[in-house]
């Protein structure tokens, strides 16, 4: 699914966020990305759906070479990837419904299927009754769940979730994790950056630990590993 070879990323301001990542993630895997604040987790995920481009190294995502990808092909890459952004990135003028629907409009889904699917995912994250609200009228956790709903709406082959439970209480977090596990079971590859020791240590999956832009640990059925 994803293959990286000696990937480095230096931001224009000189910060070296990634210092040489070698990695392979197979289709259907569930991967936790852990590491301290500023370690490079978000940067790593941004490279995959090409919000950022690597400074050097090679990246393949579902067989496509991202370093050689033309700009006009990028939207088609992104349609195969669902992303829950750390800062949500909801469209502020659109309602919750419209926000989620947008991901389906983009692929020219039929209106009938779209309505059905949007209400389905909003129901899954427990926000069916807030479909007509705009993001500013939601609490932090509710916005985060909208972001999750949008990411899974289009049955992506790959789901990237950047800190998807950061603003959620434990109960809701576990519900979200259940959804992610279901999606994963149906074949979707999942990469989840998280700080939740509890989740990582309870639902055991592959853990990739990043420190200062380098992979310091890559462990199947690993645990969070940092102790307070």
């Amino acid at each position, binding site marked *: 699914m994803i293959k990286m070879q000696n990937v480095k990323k230096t931001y224009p301001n000189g910060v070296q966020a990634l210092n040489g990542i070698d990695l392979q993630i197979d289709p259907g895997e569930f991967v936790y990305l852990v590491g301290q604040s500023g370690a490079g987790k978000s940067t790593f995920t941004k490279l995959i759906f090409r*919000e950022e481009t690597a400074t050097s190294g090679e990246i393949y995502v579902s067989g496509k070479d991202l370093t050689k990808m033309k700009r006009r092909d990028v*939207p088609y890459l992104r349609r195969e990837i669902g992303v829950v*952004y750390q800062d949500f990135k*909801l469209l502020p003028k659109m309602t919750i419904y419209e926000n989620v629907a947008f991901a389906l409009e983009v692929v020219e889904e039929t209106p009938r299927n779209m309505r059905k699917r949007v209400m389905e995912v909003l129901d899954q994250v427990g926000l069916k009754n807030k479909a007509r609200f705009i993001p500013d009228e939601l609490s932090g956790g509710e916005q985060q769940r909208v972001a999750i709903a949008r990411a899974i709406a289009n049955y992506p082959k790959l789901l990237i979730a950047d800190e998807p439970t950061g603003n959620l209480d434990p109960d809701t977090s576990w519900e979200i994790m259940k959804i992610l596990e279901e999606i994963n079971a149906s074949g979707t590859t999942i990469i989840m950056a998280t700080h939740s020791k509890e989740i990582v240590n309870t639902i055991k999956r592959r853990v990739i630990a990043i420190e200062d832009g380098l992979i310091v640990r890559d462990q199947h059925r690993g645990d969070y590993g940092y102790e307070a």
Partner: protein
Amino acid sequence: MKLRTLKRHFREGFKNSWRNSWMTIASIGAVTTTLILVATFLVLLLNINHIADSLENDVEIKVLVDLTATEEEREAIGEELESMSIIETVVFSSREQELENLKSSLGEDGDVFGIFDDQENPLDDAYIVKLTDPQQTVPVAEEIATIPKVSEVNYGEDFVQDLFNFNNYARNIGLVLIIALVFTAIFLISNTIKITIFARRKEIEIMKLVGATNWFIRWPFFVEGLLLGILGSVIPIAALVTGYYYLDQNIETVNQFDFITLLPFSPFVWQVSGLILLIGAVIGIWGSVMSVRKFLKV
């Protein structure tokens, strides 16, 4: 693109205008104001041009026939004049008429001519000539002067030359002004649209991140720009039509100069209205679509 997607883009364009209502109103305000400006000056300058034209059309050439000319020679001159394609009308005026005209044009001073009787009349027979293109007065007058037995050709040289020069200046300045004004309008409108879209760059970025193609994002902006241009043209056109109608109806009661006549209401107003609408719509679309461009590189 599927038809339902096109419909979606139009619906979305309208919705966006509504969602960003504050910005939409500000943009429409800018379009409205600039187009009113353009319309006003367009009307003004086209009418000044029209007045200049009608002043020039009053210019006539007086061809004096030599006293020694026989009747045949005199008529030959008339025929020669009629045969020139650039000449529109030729009217004969006998020396007696000429004396009458001179007397009456001098008013009371003219009485001093009372002492002349027909034999002493010092004036010549004349042909009064009008041209299809009055701007050609000078060369045509020179050509007429070469006709045999034409003693003199008068057309108020100084005044006519001044008139043409002045009118041509006025026309050129007007043309420059109106072109400059249209470019100013284009700049101001697209500048305003640019700022409103700049304020929405984050949204455009998000759309791109969710997998929208550039055209998918552009289309609603296209519709929005069109809407902006059309809505922004409504008030200018309404103001133009009612204003010009009012002017047209009342010009005679206030106008004390018979050389000032307005261009007829129809079709003039409709042509200018069409132009205003066209400018509004084209700049609206162009401004929107161009401004989106630079935020699509995500």
